[in-house]
Protein backbone atom coordinates (compact mmCIF):
# COMPACT_ATOMS: atom_id res chain seq x y z
CA UNK A 1 0.00 0.00 0.00
CA UNK A 2 1.74 3.08 -1.20
CA UNK A 3 0.95 6.63 -0.32
CA UNK A 4 1.83 8.02 -3.73
CA UNK A 5 -0.74 10.25 -5.30
CA UNK A 6 -0.90 11.40 -8.91
CA UNK A 7 -3.04 14.06 -10.48
CA UNK A 8 -4.79 13.42 -13.76
CA UNK A 9 -7.18 15.70 -15.56
CA UNK A 10 -9.07 12.96 -17.36
CA UNK A 11 -8.62 9.35 -16.37
CA UNK A 12 -9.80 6.73 -18.84
CA UNK A 13 -10.22 3.28 -17.38
CA UNK A 14 -9.80 0.71 -20.12
CA UNK A 15 -7.80 1.13 -23.31
CA UNK A 16 -10.16 -0.61 -25.70
CA UNK A 17 -11.99 0.96 -28.64
CA UNK A 18 -14.20 3.17 -26.45
CA UNK A 19 -11.41 4.23 -24.10
CA UNK A 20 -8.97 5.05 -26.88
CA UNK A 21 -11.64 6.95 -28.79
CA UNK A 22 -12.40 9.08 -25.74
CA UNK A 23 -8.72 9.65 -25.12
CA UNK A 24 -7.91 10.64 -28.68
CA UNK A 25 -10.93 12.92 -28.96
CA UNK A 26 -10.54 14.68 -25.62
CA UNK A 27 -6.79 15.03 -26.05
CA UNK A 28 -7.28 16.56 -29.49
CA UNK A 29 -8.93 19.53 -27.75
CA UNK A 30 -6.13 19.83 -25.24
CA UNK A 31 -7.39 17.74 -22.31
CA UNK A 32 -4.61 15.95 -20.45
CA UNK A 33 -5.58 12.31 -20.66
CA UNK A 34 -4.18 9.21 -19.01
CA UNK A 35 -5.43 5.78 -20.06
CA UNK A 36 -5.18 2.91 -17.59
CA UNK A 37 -5.20 -0.63 -18.89
CA UNK A 38 -4.60 -3.98 -17.32
CA UNK A 39 -2.85 -5.43 -20.33
CA UNK A 40 0.66 -5.27 -21.68
CA UNK A 41 -0.60 -3.38 -24.74
CA UNK A 42 -3.53 -1.06 -25.31
CA UNK A 43 -6.35 -1.72 -27.75
CA UNK A 44 -8.50 -4.03 -25.71
CA UNK A 45 -10.43 -6.41 -27.88
CA UNK A 46 -10.00 -4.23 -30.96
CA UNK A 47 -6.84 -5.97 -32.12
CA UNK A 48 -8.57 -9.30 -32.36
CA UNK A 49 -11.25 -7.89 -34.66
CA UNK A 50 -9.49 -8.69 -37.89
CA UNK A 51 -12.60 -8.44 -40.03
CA UNK A 52 -13.74 -5.40 -41.98
CA UNK A 53 -16.22 -3.31 -40.06
CA UNK A 54 -19.73 -2.47 -41.12
CA UNK A 55 -21.08 1.06 -41.11
CA UNK A 56 -20.37 4.07 -43.23
CA UNK A 57 -17.26 5.98 -44.17
CA UNK A 58 -17.41 8.06 -40.98
CA UNK A 59 -17.48 4.82 -39.01
CA UNK A 60 -14.42 3.59 -40.92
CA UNK A 61 -16.46 0.88 -42.60
CA UNK A 62 -14.61 -1.59 -44.75
CA UNK A 63 -11.52 -1.18 -42.59
CA UNK A 64 -10.33 -4.02 -40.44
CA UNK A 65 -10.67 -3.64 -36.66
CA UNK A 66 -6.98 -3.95 -35.90
CA UNK A 67 -6.15 -1.27 -38.43
CA UNK A 68 -8.67 1.03 -36.78
CA UNK A 69 -6.88 0.18 -33.55
CA UNK A 70 -3.53 1.23 -34.96
CA UNK A 71 -4.93 4.52 -36.23
CA UNK A 72 -6.52 5.22 -32.84
CA UNK A 73 -3.23 4.50 -31.13
CA UNK A 74 -1.35 6.85 -33.41
CA UNK A 75 -3.95 9.56 -32.82
CA UNK A 76 -3.50 9.09 -29.08
CA UNK A 77 0.22 9.36 -29.49
CA UNK A 78 -0.10 12.45 -31.67
CA UNK A 79 -2.21 14.25 -29.07
CA UNK A 80 0.02 13.24 -26.18
CA UNK A 81 -2.24 10.78 -24.39
CA UNK A 82 -0.41 9.07 -21.58
CA UNK A 83 -0.93 5.36 -21.03
CA UNK A 84 -0.33 3.34 -17.90
CA UNK A 85 -0.27 -0.30 -18.91
CA UNK A 86 -0.14 -3.45 -16.78
CA UNK A 87 -2.16 -1.36 -14.37
CA UNK A 88 -5.25 -2.52 -12.55
CA UNK A 89 -7.83 0.02 -11.47
CA UNK A 90 -9.23 -1.60 -8.36
CA UNK A 91 -11.23 1.13 -6.79
CA UNK A 92 -13.05 4.36 -7.44
CA UNK A 93 -14.51 7.03 -5.25
CA UNK A 94 -15.69 10.45 -6.35
CA UNK A 95 -12.64 11.99 -8.01
CA UNK A 96 -10.23 9.33 -6.95
CA UNK A 97 -8.98 6.10 -8.45
CA UNK A 98 -7.08 3.32 -6.73
CA UNK A 99 -4.62 1.67 -9.05
CA UNK A 100 -2.11 -1.10 -8.77
CA UNK A 101 0.98 -1.27 -10.88
CA UNK A 102 3.83 -3.68 -10.49
CA UNK A 103 2.70 -4.72 -7.02
CA UNK A 104 2.38 -1.17 -5.74
CA UNK A 105 -0.75 0.76 -4.96
CA UNK A 106 -1.31 4.39 -5.86
CA UNK A 107 -4.10 6.88 -5.59
CA UNK A 108 -4.99 8.97 -8.61
CA UNK A 109 -6.85 12.25 -8.28
CA UNK A 110 -8.92 13.05 -11.32
CA UNK A 111 -11.14 15.84 -12.55
CA UNK A 112 -13.17 13.52 -14.78
CA UNK A 113 -13.20 9.79 -15.12
CA UNK A 114 -14.37 7.68 -18.04
CA UNK A 115 -15.20 4.09 -17.30
CA UNK A 116 -14.71 2.12 -20.48
CA UNK A 117 -14.07 -1.32 -19.06
CA UNK A 118 -15.91 -3.23 -21.77
CA UNK A 119 -17.55 -6.57 -21.29
CA UNK A 120 -16.90 -10.16 -20.43
CA UNK A 121 -18.27 -13.27 -22.08
CA UNK A 122 -21.13 -15.19 -20.58
CA UNK A 123 -20.29 -18.73 -19.63
CA UNK A 124 -22.48 -21.70 -20.43
CA UNK A 125 -22.59 -24.68 -18.13
CA UNK A 126 -22.92 -28.26 -19.31
CA UNK A 127 -21.27 -31.47 -18.17
CA UNK A 128 -17.60 -31.19 -18.95
CA UNK A 129 -17.61 -27.42 -19.45
CA UNK A 130 -14.66 -27.03 -17.11
CA UNK A 131 -12.40 -29.20 -19.24
CA UNK A 132 -9.41 -27.57 -20.79
CA UNK A 133 -10.34 -26.72 -24.37
CA UNK A 134 -13.74 -25.26 -23.53
CA UNK A 135 -13.35 -21.51 -23.76
CA UNK A 136 -15.08 -18.32 -24.64
CA UNK A 137 -15.22 -17.56 -28.35
CA UNK A 138 -13.48 -14.27 -27.59
CA UNK A 139 -10.74 -16.16 -25.77
CA UNK A 140 -10.09 -18.31 -28.82
CA UNK A 141 -10.13 -15.14 -30.92
CA UNK A 142 -7.56 -13.49 -28.65
CA UNK A 143 -5.30 -16.51 -28.80
CA UNK A 144 -5.32 -16.81 -32.58
CA UNK A 145 -5.56 -13.21 -33.75
CA UNK A 146 -3.54 -11.40 -31.11
CA UNK A 147 -1.11 -14.03 -29.87
CA UNK A 148 -1.05 -16.06 -33.07
CA UNK A 149 -1.56 -19.39 -31.37
CA UNK A 150 -4.10 -21.99 -32.39
CA UNK A 151 -6.34 -22.75 -29.42
CA UNK A 152 -7.16 -26.16 -30.94
CA UNK A 153 -7.32 -28.06 -34.19
CA UNK A 154 -11.00 -28.78 -34.57
CA UNK A 155 -13.70 -26.68 -33.01
CA UNK A 156 -17.37 -26.67 -32.14
CA UNK A 157 -18.98 -23.25 -31.87
CA UNK A 158 -21.86 -22.83 -29.45
CA UNK A 159 -23.97 -19.81 -30.36
CA UNK A 160 -24.68 -18.14 -33.69
CA UNK A 161 -24.76 -14.47 -32.80
CA UNK A 162 -22.31 -12.24 -34.63
CA UNK A 163 -19.53 -13.21 -32.23
CA UNK A 164 -20.13 -16.91 -32.85
CA UNK A 165 -20.28 -16.46 -36.60
CA UNK A 166 -17.31 -14.11 -36.90
CA UNK A 167 -15.11 -16.22 -34.64
CA UNK A 168 -16.07 -19.37 -36.57
CA UNK A 169 -14.93 -17.65 -39.73
CA UNK A 170 -11.72 -16.53 -38.07
CA UNK A 171 -11.08 -20.05 -36.82
CA UNK A 172 -11.20 -21.16 -40.45
CA UNK A 173 -8.82 -18.34 -41.39
CA UNK A 174 -6.41 -19.55 -38.72
CA UNK A 175 -6.44 -23.02 -40.23
CA UNK A 176 -8.67 -24.54 -37.57
CA UNK A 177 -11.47 -26.80 -38.69
CA UNK A 178 -14.97 -26.01 -37.51
CA UNK A 179 -17.09 -29.11 -37.01
CA UNK A 180 -20.35 -27.23 -36.56
CA UNK A 181 -22.07 -24.19 -35.13
CA UNK A 182 -24.94 -25.02 -32.78
CA UNK A 183 -27.67 -22.55 -31.91
CA UNK A 184 -30.42 -23.20 -29.39
CA UNK A 185 -32.91 -20.90 -31.10
CA UNK A 186 -34.63 -21.93 -34.32
CA UNK A 187 -32.91 -19.09 -36.18
CA UNK A 188 -29.38 -17.76 -36.28
CA UNK A 189 -28.74 -14.71 -34.14
CA UNK A 190 -26.16 -12.87 -36.24
CA UNK A 191 -26.03 -11.31 -39.67
CA UNK A 192 -27.00 -13.47 -42.62
CA UNK A 193 -23.93 -12.40 -44.59
CA UNK A 194 -21.64 -13.73 -41.86
CA UNK A 195 -23.53 -17.03 -41.88
CA UNK A 196 -23.39 -17.14 -45.67
CA UNK A 197 -19.64 -16.87 -45.87
CA UNK A 198 -19.24 -19.67 -43.35
CA UNK A 199 -21.78 -21.85 -45.11
CA UNK A 200 -19.82 -21.48 -48.35
CA UNK A 201 -17.07 -23.52 -46.69
CA UNK A 202 -19.54 -26.25 -45.80
CA UNK A 203 -19.51 -25.69 -42.04
CA UNK A 204 -22.96 -26.78 -40.84
CA UNK A 205 -25.08 -24.40 -38.80
CA UNK A 206 -27.44 -26.39 -36.63
CA UNK A 207 -30.33 -24.45 -35.17
CA UNK A 208 -32.62 -25.72 -32.41
CA UNK A 209 -29.56 -27.62 -31.28
CA UNK A 210 -27.40 -27.55 -28.21
CA UNK A 211 -24.29 -28.98 -26.68
CA UNK A 212 -25.07 -31.72 -24.17
CA UNK A 213 -21.66 -32.64 -22.94
CA UNK A 214 -17.94 -32.21 -23.41
CA UNK A 215 -15.94 -35.36 -22.90
CA UNK A 216 -12.29 -36.04 -22.40
CA UNK A 217 -9.69 -37.18 -19.91
CA UNK A 218 -7.95 -33.87 -19.22
CA UNK A 219 -8.80 -31.91 -22.31
CA UNK A 220 -11.79 -31.88 -24.60
CA UNK A 221 -11.70 -34.89 -26.90
CA UNK A 222 -15.28 -34.94 -28.08
CA UNK A 223 -18.51 -33.02 -27.85
CA UNK A 224 -22.04 -34.40 -27.72
CA UNK A 225 -24.63 -32.28 -29.47
CA UNK A 226 -28.36 -32.83 -29.91
CA UNK A 227 -31.50 -31.24 -31.26
CA UNK A 228 -33.85 -29.57 -28.83
CA UNK A 229 -37.59 -28.99 -28.93
CA UNK A 230 -39.39 -25.67 -28.48
CA UNK A 231 -39.15 -26.01 -24.72
CA UNK A 232 -35.43 -26.50 -24.88
CA UNK A 233 -35.50 -30.19 -23.98
CA UNK A 234 -33.07 -32.51 -25.71
CA UNK A 235 -34.83 -34.75 -28.20
CA UNK A 236 -33.85 -38.34 -27.50
CA UNK A 237 -32.09 -40.11 -30.31
CA UNK A 238 -30.72 -36.94 -31.89
CA UNK A 239 -27.44 -36.98 -29.99
CA UNK A 240 -24.30 -36.87 -32.11
CA UNK A 241 -20.71 -37.19 -31.03
CA UNK A 242 -18.24 -34.84 -32.68
CA UNK A 243 -14.50 -35.38 -32.34
CA UNK A 244 -13.32 -31.88 -31.39
CA UNK A 245 -10.59 -30.52 -29.14
CA UNK A 246 -11.98 -27.01 -28.84
CA UNK A 247 -15.43 -25.86 -27.80
CA UNK A 248 -16.05 -22.14 -28.15
CA UNK A 249 -18.86 -20.55 -26.22
CA UNK A 250 -20.49 -17.50 -27.78
CA UNK A 251 -23.65 -16.95 -25.79
CA UNK A 252 -23.48 -13.24 -25.26
CA UNK A 253 -21.58 -10.69 -23.27
CA UNK A 254 -22.28 -8.68 -20.17
CA UNK A 255 -20.95 -5.29 -19.09
CA UNK A 256 -17.95 -5.30 -16.78
CA UNK A 257 -19.49 -2.64 -14.60
CA UNK A 258 -17.96 -3.31 -11.17
CA UNK A 259 -16.34 0.11 -11.04
CA UNK A 260 -19.66 1.76 -11.91
CA UNK A 261 -21.33 -0.11 -9.07
CA UNK A 262 -18.54 0.93 -6.76
CA UNK A 263 -18.78 4.53 -7.85
CA UNK A 264 -22.46 4.47 -6.91
CA UNK A 265 -23.89 4.82 -10.41
CA UNK A 266 -27.55 4.03 -10.80
CA UNK A 267 -28.37 1.09 -13.01
CA UNK A 268 -31.18 -0.15 -15.20
CA UNK A 269 -31.85 -3.77 -16.08
CA UNK A 270 -31.90 -4.04 -19.86
CA UNK A 271 -31.44 -7.59 -21.16
CA UNK A 272 -31.02 -6.30 -24.73
CA UNK A 273 -27.87 -4.48 -23.60
CA UNK A 274 -26.51 -7.46 -21.72
CA UNK A 275 -27.61 -7.04 -18.11
CA UNK A 276 -27.70 -4.23 -15.60
CA UNK A 277 -26.39 -1.18 -17.40
CA UNK A 278 -25.27 2.10 -15.82
CA UNK A 279 -27.78 4.82 -16.57
CA UNK A 280 -26.24 7.65 -18.58
CA UNK A 281 -27.46 10.78 -20.29
CA UNK A 282 -27.03 11.69 -23.92
CA UNK A 283 -23.52 12.95 -23.18
CA UNK A 284 -22.58 9.54 -21.76
CA UNK A 285 -22.45 10.99 -18.27
CA UNK A 286 -23.41 8.52 -15.56
CA UNK A 287 -25.60 9.43 -12.61
CA UNK A 288 -22.48 10.22 -10.60
CA UNK A 289 -20.91 13.61 -11.10
CA UNK A 290 -17.70 13.60 -13.11
CA UNK A 291 -18.01 9.95 -14.07
CA UNK A 292 -18.75 9.02 -17.69
CA UNK A 293 -19.23 5.66 -19.34
CA UNK A 294 -18.63 4.55 -22.91
CA UNK A 295 -18.60 1.34 -24.90
CA UNK A 296 -19.81 -2.08 -23.89
CA UNK A 297 -19.86 -1.22 -20.20
CA UNK A 298 -22.73 1.14 -21.10
CA UNK A 299 -24.58 -1.63 -22.92
CA UNK A 300 -23.36 -4.44 -25.14
CA UNK A 301 -23.14 -3.32 -28.76
CA UNK A 302 -20.11 -3.51 -31.02
CA UNK A 303 -16.79 -1.79 -31.53
CA UNK A 304 -18.06 0.89 -33.94
CA UNK A 305 -20.71 2.11 -31.51
CA UNK A 306 -18.19 1.87 -28.69
CA UNK A 307 -15.87 4.23 -30.53
CA UNK A 308 -18.65 6.65 -31.40
CA UNK A 309 -19.79 6.69 -27.78
CA UNK A 310 -16.20 7.31 -26.81
CA UNK A 311 -15.93 10.28 -29.15
CA UNK A 312 -19.18 11.67 -27.82
CA UNK A 313 -17.95 11.36 -24.24
CA UNK A 314 -14.62 12.87 -25.24
CA UNK A 315 -16.31 15.96 -26.65
CA UNK A 316 -18.59 16.27 -23.62
CA UNK A 317 -15.66 16.07 -21.22
CA UNK A 318 -13.61 18.58 -23.19
CA UNK A 319 -16.56 20.95 -22.99
CA UNK A 320 -17.03 20.41 -19.25
CA UNK A 321 -13.35 21.06 -18.67
CA UNK A 322 -13.56 24.28 -20.64
CA UNK A 323 -11.55 23.25 -23.68
CA UNK A 324 -14.51 23.62 -26.03
CA UNK A 325 -17.13 26.34 -26.31
CA UNK A 326 -20.64 25.12 -25.76
CA UNK A 327 -21.80 26.00 -29.25
CA UNK A 328 -18.96 24.20 -30.94
CA UNK A 329 -19.37 21.28 -28.57
CA UNK A 330 -23.08 21.00 -29.23
CA UNK A 331 -22.48 20.87 -32.93
CA UNK A 332 -19.86 18.17 -32.59
CA UNK A 333 -21.95 16.21 -30.13
CA UNK A 334 -24.91 16.28 -32.48
CA UNK A 335 -22.80 14.91 -35.30
CA UNK A 336 -21.52 12.14 -33.06
CA UNK A 337 -25.06 11.34 -31.95
CA UNK A 338 -26.15 11.17 -35.57
CA UNK A 339 -23.39 8.72 -36.36
CA UNK A 340 -24.43 6.65 -33.35
CA UNK A 341 -28.05 6.69 -34.42
CA UNK A 342 -27.19 5.43 -37.86
CA UNK A 343 -25.42 2.43 -36.31
CA UNK A 344 -28.56 1.58 -34.39
CA UNK A 345 -30.91 1.30 -37.33
CA UNK A 346 -32.57 -1.69 -38.90
CA UNK A 347 -33.98 -4.84 -37.36
CA UNK A 348 -30.73 -5.51 -35.48
CA UNK A 349 -30.33 -1.99 -34.16
CA UNK A 350 -33.88 -1.05 -33.28
CA UNK A 351 -34.05 -2.89 -29.99
CA UNK A 352 -30.72 -1.46 -28.92
CA UNK A 353 -31.75 2.05 -29.90
CA UNK A 354 -34.93 1.62 -27.86
CA UNK A 355 -33.02 0.36 -24.83
CA UNK A 356 -30.51 3.20 -25.09
CA UNK A 357 -33.38 5.66 -25.24
CA UNK A 358 -34.73 4.22 -22.00
CA UNK A 359 -31.34 4.84 -20.42
CA UNK A 360 -30.88 8.40 -21.56
CA UNK A 361 -34.48 9.35 -20.89
CA UNK A 362 -34.45 7.87 -17.39
CA UNK A 363 -35.73 10.20 -14.72
CA UNK A 364 -32.60 9.60 -12.71
CA UNK A 365 -30.70 11.77 -15.18
CA UNK A 366 -32.66 14.85 -14.18
Amino acid sequence: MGKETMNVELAVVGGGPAGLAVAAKAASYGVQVTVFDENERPGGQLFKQIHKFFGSKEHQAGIRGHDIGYSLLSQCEEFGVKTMLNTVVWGIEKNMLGIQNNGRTYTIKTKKTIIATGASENPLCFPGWTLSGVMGAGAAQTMMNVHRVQPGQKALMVGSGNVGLIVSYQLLLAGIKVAAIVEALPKIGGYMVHAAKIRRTGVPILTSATICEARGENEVEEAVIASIDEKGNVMEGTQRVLPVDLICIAVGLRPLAELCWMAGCKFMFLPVLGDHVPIHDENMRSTVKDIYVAGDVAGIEEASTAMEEGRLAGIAVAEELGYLGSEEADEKKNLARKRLESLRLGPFGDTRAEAKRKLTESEVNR
Partner: protein
Amino acid sequence: MKDRLKSTPGAWVISREILEASPGYPSKEELKRKPVIVIECPEEIPCDPCETICPRGAIVVGEPITNLPRIDQDKCNACGLCIPICPGLAIFLVDNTYSEKEATVSFPYEYYPLPKEGDEVNAVNREGEIACKAKVLKVRDPKSHDHTSVITIVIPKEYSNQVRGIELQQKVDKNE
Protein backbone atom coordinates in the same frame (compact mmCIF):
# COMPACT_ATOMS: atom_id res chain seq x y z
CA MET B 1 -16.82 -39.81 -46.18
CA LYS B 2 -18.99 -40.59 -43.17
CA ASP B 3 -22.40 -38.99 -42.98
CA ARG B 4 -21.64 -35.33 -42.65
CA LEU B 5 -23.56 -32.98 -40.47
CA LYS B 6 -26.22 -31.24 -42.49
CA SER B 7 -27.03 -27.68 -41.71
CA THR B 8 -30.54 -27.18 -40.42
CA PRO B 9 -32.60 -26.23 -43.47
CA GLY B 10 -34.07 -22.77 -43.39
CA ALA B 11 -32.06 -21.75 -40.40
CA TRP B 12 -29.91 -19.29 -42.22
CA VAL B 13 -30.43 -19.87 -45.90
CA ILE B 14 -31.70 -16.99 -47.86
CA SER B 15 -33.97 -18.54 -50.42
CA ARG B 16 -33.20 -17.85 -54.07
CA GLU B 17 -36.51 -16.01 -54.26
CA ILE B 18 -35.56 -13.59 -51.51
CA LEU B 19 -32.14 -13.02 -53.01
CA GLU B 20 -33.51 -12.49 -56.47
CA ALA B 21 -36.13 -10.12 -55.16
CA SER B 22 -33.57 -7.98 -53.34
CA PRO B 23 -32.57 -4.77 -55.12
CA GLY B 24 -28.94 -5.80 -55.43
CA TYR B 25 -29.72 -8.83 -57.54
CA PRO B 26 -29.68 -8.47 -61.32
CA SER B 27 -32.52 -9.61 -63.54
CA LYS B 28 -32.34 -12.77 -65.62
CA GLU B 29 -31.90 -10.74 -68.79
CA GLU B 30 -29.08 -8.70 -67.34
CA LEU B 31 -27.39 -11.88 -66.14
CA LYS B 32 -27.52 -13.23 -69.67
CA ARG B 33 -26.58 -10.02 -71.42
CA LYS B 34 -23.38 -8.87 -69.73
CA PRO B 35 -20.98 -9.28 -66.80
CA VAL B 36 -22.97 -8.22 -63.74
CA ILE B 37 -22.40 -7.46 -60.10
CA VAL B 38 -24.55 -9.64 -57.82
CA ILE B 39 -25.18 -8.31 -54.32
CA GLU B 40 -26.45 -10.95 -51.93
CA CYS B 41 -27.34 -8.64 -49.07
CA PRO B 42 -31.01 -9.09 -48.10
CA GLU B 43 -30.86 -7.86 -44.48
CA GLU B 44 -31.16 -4.29 -43.27
CA ILE B 45 -27.85 -3.70 -41.58
CA PRO B 46 -26.15 -0.32 -41.19
CA CYS B 47 -23.50 -0.57 -43.88
CA ASP B 48 -22.61 1.26 -47.09
CA PRO B 49 -18.97 0.86 -48.22
CA CYS B 50 -20.22 -0.54 -51.54
CA GLU B 51 -21.93 2.78 -52.22
CA THR B 52 -18.90 4.79 -51.13
CA ILE B 53 -16.41 2.92 -53.26
CA CYS B 54 -18.38 2.78 -56.51
CA PRO B 55 -16.76 5.36 -58.86
CA ARG B 56 -19.80 5.44 -61.15
CA GLY B 57 -22.47 5.85 -58.50
CA ALA B 58 -24.08 2.63 -59.63
CA ILE B 59 -24.67 1.28 -56.11
CA VAL B 60 -26.98 3.33 -53.91
CA VAL B 61 -27.78 2.76 -50.25
CA GLY B 62 -28.80 6.28 -49.34
CA GLU B 63 -30.61 7.28 -46.17
CA PRO B 64 -31.12 5.52 -43.85
CA ILE B 65 -27.95 3.55 -44.02
CA THR B 66 -29.87 0.33 -43.42
CA ASN B 67 -31.46 0.45 -46.87
CA LEU B 68 -30.64 -2.56 -48.98
CA PRO B 69 -28.09 -1.64 -51.63
CA ARG B 70 -29.69 -1.20 -55.05
CA ILE B 71 -27.67 -1.39 -58.21
CA ASP B 72 -28.19 0.43 -61.45
CA GLN B 73 -26.98 -2.12 -63.98
CA ASP B 74 -26.84 0.53 -66.73
CA LYS B 75 -24.34 2.62 -64.79
CA CYS B 76 -22.36 -0.43 -63.55
CA ASN B 77 -19.44 -1.50 -65.71
CA ALA B 78 -18.67 -4.51 -63.51
CA CYS B 79 -15.30 -3.16 -62.45
CA GLY B 80 -15.54 -5.24 -59.26
CA LEU B 81 -14.16 -2.66 -56.83
CA CYS B 82 -17.10 -3.37 -54.52
CA ILE B 83 -16.24 -7.07 -54.15
CA PRO B 84 -13.30 -6.82 -51.74
CA ILE B 85 -14.64 -3.82 -49.79
CA CYS B 86 -17.88 -5.51 -48.70
CA PRO B 87 -17.43 -6.41 -45.01
CA GLY B 88 -19.99 -9.17 -45.43
CA LEU B 89 -18.19 -10.73 -48.41
CA ALA B 90 -21.57 -10.69 -50.12
CA ILE B 91 -20.77 -9.22 -53.54
CA PHE B 92 -19.97 -11.33 -56.58
CA LEU B 93 -19.37 -10.79 -60.27
CA VAL B 94 -21.02 -13.21 -62.66
CA ASP B 95 -20.17 -13.18 -66.35
CA ASN B 96 -22.31 -15.43 -68.49
CA THR B 97 -20.83 -14.03 -71.68
CA TYR B 98 -17.37 -15.53 -71.04
CA SER B 99 -17.77 -18.15 -73.74
CA GLU B 100 -20.50 -20.17 -75.31
CA LYS B 101 -20.58 -22.87 -72.66
CA GLU B 102 -18.70 -21.28 -69.82
CA ALA B 103 -19.25 -18.51 -67.37
CA THR B 104 -16.96 -16.86 -64.85
CA VAL B 105 -17.73 -16.11 -61.23
CA SER B 106 -15.57 -13.71 -59.22
CA PHE B 107 -15.81 -13.82 -55.45
CA PRO B 108 -13.95 -12.58 -52.38
CA TYR B 109 -11.65 -15.08 -50.69
CA GLU B 110 -9.57 -14.66 -47.55
CA TYR B 111 -8.28 -18.14 -46.80
CA TYR B 112 -4.75 -19.42 -46.83
CA PRO B 113 -3.35 -20.66 -49.10
CA LEU B 114 -4.68 -18.91 -52.18
CA PRO B 115 -5.18 -20.99 -55.31
CA LYS B 116 -2.96 -20.19 -58.28
CA GLU B 117 -4.08 -19.09 -61.69
CA GLY B 118 -4.64 -22.13 -63.85
CA ASP B 119 -5.39 -24.43 -60.89
CA GLU B 120 -8.14 -26.99 -61.21
CA VAL B 121 -10.37 -26.60 -58.16
CA ASN B 122 -13.77 -27.64 -56.91
CA ALA B 123 -16.39 -24.90 -57.15
CA VAL B 124 -18.89 -24.80 -54.29
CA ASN B 125 -22.39 -23.45 -53.98
CA ARG B 126 -23.83 -21.29 -51.19
CA GLU B 127 -24.06 -24.40 -49.00
CA GLY B 128 -20.44 -25.35 -49.43
CA GLU B 129 -21.38 -28.37 -51.51
CA ILE B 130 -19.18 -29.11 -54.50
CA ALA B 131 -21.15 -28.06 -57.58
CA CYS B 132 -18.68 -28.62 -60.37
CA LYS B 133 -15.06 -28.47 -61.40
CA ALA B 134 -13.62 -25.06 -62.04
CA LYS B 135 -10.48 -23.49 -63.41
CA VAL B 136 -8.93 -20.52 -61.67
CA LEU B 137 -8.73 -17.70 -64.16
CA LYS B 138 -7.50 -14.84 -62.06
CA VAL B 139 -6.32 -14.21 -58.50
CA ARG B 140 -6.18 -10.55 -57.61
CA ASP B 141 -4.73 -9.56 -54.27
CA PRO B 142 -3.44 -6.01 -54.51
CA LYS B 143 -2.65 -4.05 -51.37
CA SER B 144 -5.79 -1.97 -51.78
CA HIS B 145 -7.88 -5.09 -51.23
CA ASP B 146 -6.47 -5.37 -47.72
CA HIS B 147 -6.05 -9.14 -47.81
CA THR B 148 -9.39 -9.85 -49.41
CA SER B 149 -8.43 -11.49 -52.67
CA VAL B 150 -10.82 -11.60 -55.57
CA ILE B 151 -10.73 -14.91 -57.38
CA THR B 152 -12.25 -15.50 -60.77
CA ILE B 153 -13.06 -19.03 -61.78
CA VAL B 154 -14.37 -20.48 -65.01
CA ILE B 155 -17.28 -22.89 -64.68
CA PRO B 156 -19.91 -24.45 -66.90
CA LYS B 157 -22.58 -21.84 -67.56
CA GLU B 158 -25.43 -23.79 -65.95
CA TYR B 159 -23.76 -23.41 -62.54
CA SER B 160 -23.24 -19.68 -62.66
CA ASN B 161 -26.28 -19.02 -60.51
CA GLN B 162 -25.24 -21.30 -57.68
CA VAL B 163 -21.46 -21.28 -57.55
CA ARG B 164 -20.24 -18.70 -55.04
CA GLY B 165 -16.84 -19.96 -54.03
CA ILE B 166 -14.31 -22.76 -54.05
CA GLU B 167 -13.45 -25.52 -51.69
CA LEU B 168 -10.87 -24.43 -49.11
CA GLN B 169 -7.38 -25.19 -50.26
CA GLN B 170 -6.40 -26.41 -46.80
CA LYS B 171 -5.69 -30.11 -46.59
CA VAL B 172 -9.01 -31.49 -45.44
CA ASP B 173 -9.08 -34.73 -43.53
CA LYS B 174 -11.28 -36.83 -45.78
CA ASN B 175 -12.24 -39.17 -42.96
CA GLU B 176 -14.36 -36.65 -41.23
